[in-house]
């Protein structure tokens, strides 16, 4: 599935529920399936501190795609992170930079990602995109290096 297909499937999954409590229950369940950050990476450097909840995020880049692992001290935050990772993890830096995260809005979780909600989620999305930009710059740098060597 491409990234937008995943976003669409999330929207569909959430559309089955009208009641907020059911949506939250789904988020709590999703949070349990989050690819957890290894404890050795759970450091100050990987911490995105919000006023309300904490988020830890770790990227692994294999030269082609970035895989993210993460954690949070709040369950609902963890659920939302798991959705972000579902969409953005295992993608190339270019895809991550280019993608527009429209599913958040559509499943009614926009308020959780607004700048006024200092739960670290907005900062987390920014951080994921920043990692992607950094890795893209790095690969671009390598390519240029290789080209230079070829010449």
């Amino acid at each position, binding site marked *: 599935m491409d990234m937008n297909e995943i976003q669409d499937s999330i929207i569909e999954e959430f559309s089955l529920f009208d009641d*907020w*409590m059911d949506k*939250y*229950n789904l988020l*709590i369940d999703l949070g349990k399936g989050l690819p957890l950050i290894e404890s050795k990476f759970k450091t100050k450097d990987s911490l995105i501190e919000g*006023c*309300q*909840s*904490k988020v830890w995020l770790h990227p692994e880049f294999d030269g082609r795609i970035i895989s993210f692992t993460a954690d949070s*001290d*709040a*369950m*609902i*935050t963890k659920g939302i992170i798991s959705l972000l990772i579902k969409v953005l993890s295992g993608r190339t830096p270019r895809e991550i930079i280019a993608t527009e995260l429209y599913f958040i809005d559509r499943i009614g979780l926009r308020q959780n990602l607004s700048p006024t909600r200092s*739960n670290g989620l907005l900062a987390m999305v920014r951080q994921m995109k920043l990692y992607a930009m950094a890795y893209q710059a790095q690969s671009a740098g390598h390519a240029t290096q290789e080209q230079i060597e070829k010449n």
Partner: protein
Amino acid sequence: MVKEITEIRNDFPLLSRKVYDKPLVYFDNGATTQKPQCVLDAVKEVYTTYNGNIHRGVHAMSDRTSEAYENARETVRAFLNASAKEEIIFTSGTTGSINSIAFSFGERFVRPGDEIILSTLEHHANIVPWQMMCERKGAVLKIIPVNDNGEILIGEYKKLLSGKTRIVAVSHASNALGVVLPVKEIIESAHSLGIPVLVDGAQGIQHGVVDVSSIDCDFYAFSGHKIYGPTGIGVLYGKQKWLEELPPWQGGGDMVERVTFEKTTYNQLPFKFEAGTMNYAGAIGLAKALDYVASTGREEIAWRESILLDYATELLSGIPKVRIYGNSEKKISTISFLIDDIHQYDTGMILDKMGIAVRTGNHCAQPVMDRLGISGTVRASMCFYNTTDEINLLGTGIEKVISMFS
């Protein structure tokens, strides 16, 4: 005449609204309170019938507004039982009041090596301004410790007082835990050494009778919006002898007597500290809010709130997984708690969707959270317009949270 609760609630238009199709249960009064219709009307009246800039014009509008503004100052004076109107300075709020005093007091009285005493319970607004001043002046902060219930250790406080202490700044009640500080005793001890005391009344003024002459504080700061008034207006009470001594914290119009490029002389109190166009509509609205509180009865308000606090404490204590932080005899109607190992943010999110507005997080009081070894709490801050029915809904909400997360 004692008002019925329905009558009180009808005074506040916002209380009858619904959120997510559920009746709003507003338990975030520690952050800001809702406004009675009379306050809304008073502010609207300024702008629709007599708006003019204060202390400036020769025209009728300016005169009328200036008069209403100065009457508001008198209302505040009477409400606090201060001895003179010159002791009442309008500010933007508690934070504005404390920043101003920390700056001016520091400029005038603080030297390298001097000490400023605060308590562990303080809101960041009563920490950071002093810290900034200390950095400028080479002074140091000394912190009064608290016990596990969030009560300050008065004996330790007395040991901190010394010839190096320049000022003591403590809150009237902890915003995070609701614990009331023994300000009178704190002030007496400081005064025995000639040390002035500032009381951060952001969580004090709205919960009972505050008489600055009786507690004898040197400075008292509070915000309008936490006592049913508009936002952006606050008060700094200061004893005249101190305010006369302190330099102004801002320069500009209205605070001056005579300006030349060589030298400016300052206006007399209270105008010396009110540079620029003040928030006069806010001050007039605040005065109306204080009138409202006074006519409802401050003792009556305190009594109603004590019943709510007792009821909520008993109800929450009866839920096995709930831990209350700040178990003290003397509290404002605020309960800070955590449920089991459920994160405060999760609890707050679920309660919100049930129509219950609480505050979650560290409440801008990180040092006391650190002291208690927690990252934050859920805070239900009630006031006299809340009801025991609403507390029952909170109880139901907590049970729901437990069923979802445990």
